[in-house]
């Protein structure tokens, strides 16, 4: 019985001893909160290890993330998805970079086309046009590769200017395949001292439409319409 009494007294003393400390802890927090030393100063620190379910700092009565009733899949970090997003961002950055680089030879190809056709018998301008076109095609291929191979994010509905950007790919994509084929046919006919005829005669118009669609695709994600 003496042991039980001793245990009860010890327990009671422990409660009496610890209660003021918990009250002190709250008072301390309040004082810090109410009297900021420097109102303009904002501090940044890395979040605790479990960033998504932080323990209420120094106050067990404060609400926790669990109290808000978020589904567990919404609060759990997903390293695999983050890696996927990082890879996607890297590939789309490369897509953007190569797309911008492609503009230069594309414009040069369009400018050089003025002297490549017509009745001129000089093959130099045609060769320059052909080389510029080939460089454009190669760079375009690399640009397209990064867009096509960029990982998709499941459950994402495409909204905004990116829809136009993607829709225009259905014009400049086939155009970038068709233009050099028609160009090769036209080049061959021209080299044989023939007038460009048949489907090869569409090389110019197809190239212009392709270039315009490509330019519009760049502008669609560069400026807000």
């Amino acid at each position, binding site marked *: 019985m003496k042991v039980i009494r001793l245990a009860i007294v010890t327990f009671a003393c422990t*409660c009496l001893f610890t209660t003021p400390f918990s009250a002190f802890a*709250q008072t301390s927090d309040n004082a810090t*909160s109410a009297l900021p030393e420097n*109102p303009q100063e904002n501090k*940044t620190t890395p*979040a605790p290890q479990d960033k998504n379910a932080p323990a209420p700092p120094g106050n067990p009565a404060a609400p926790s993330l669990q109290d808000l009733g978020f589904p567990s899949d*919404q609060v759990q970090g*997903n390293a695999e998805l983050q890696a996927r*997003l990082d890879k996607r961002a890297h590939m789309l950055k490369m897509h953007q970079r190569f797309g911008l680089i492609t503009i230069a030879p594309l414009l040069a190809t369009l400018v050089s086309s003025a002297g490549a056709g017509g009745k001129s018998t000089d093959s130099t301008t045609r060769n320059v046009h052909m080389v510029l076109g080939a460089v454009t095609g190669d760079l375009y291929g690399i640009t397209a590769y990064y867009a096509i191979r960029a990982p998709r994010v499941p459950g994402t509905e495409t909204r905004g200017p*990116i829809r136009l950007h993607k829709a225009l790919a259905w014009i400049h994509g086939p155009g970038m395949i068709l233009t050099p084929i028609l160009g090769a046919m036209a080049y061959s006919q021209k080299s044989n001292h023939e007038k460009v005829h048949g489907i090869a005669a569409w090389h110019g118009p197809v190239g212009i439409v392709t270039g315009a669609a490509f330019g519009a695709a760049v502008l669609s994600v560069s400026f807000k319409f």
Partner: protein
Amino acid sequence: MHKKILLALLLLALPLLAATDSQWVLEQSTLAYHISHPLHESQGVSHAARGKGTCHDGQCDFLIAVPVKSFDSGDSNRDIHMLQVTRGAQFPIVTVRTRLPESSSASAPIHADLEIQFAGQTAQYKQIPFQLVIQGKQTLISGTIPATLSDFKIAPPTLLALPVKNEMPIKVEMTWHPQ
């Protein structure tokens, strides 16, 4: 003997008696971040925040949380990119903690110290002004948090090699009601 046991139980129950006095629940909210780029001005809006406040000894502790992916800028590509640069898959929830005196439940401007956890970082904002309006049982709080990308160590996204501005003000409109 019984008296002693009773005393012990009473002492044990003391912290419980001093527990929560009242609670607040976030009814609806609009949180909007604003980003500036030389070619674009964009705004991402979320209505998915959840919040709770518990009052104790004249002080109310509030927690507001919102999923990063719930912010909608009207451009899915931008939203996914935002999710990537803010590491929103790894740290999917933004949390805001603040403590206000219970007496500030009258219509008036208030100043709150905020602790925001976002993108794996914690930033503290001191004395942020908010407008508080009481409408019946509802309390409307509105204001702007002057957040920046560097506060959370977020590398500014670029478009055409031009980075967005560091400033990322977050407009807050919340309606709370007592539970």
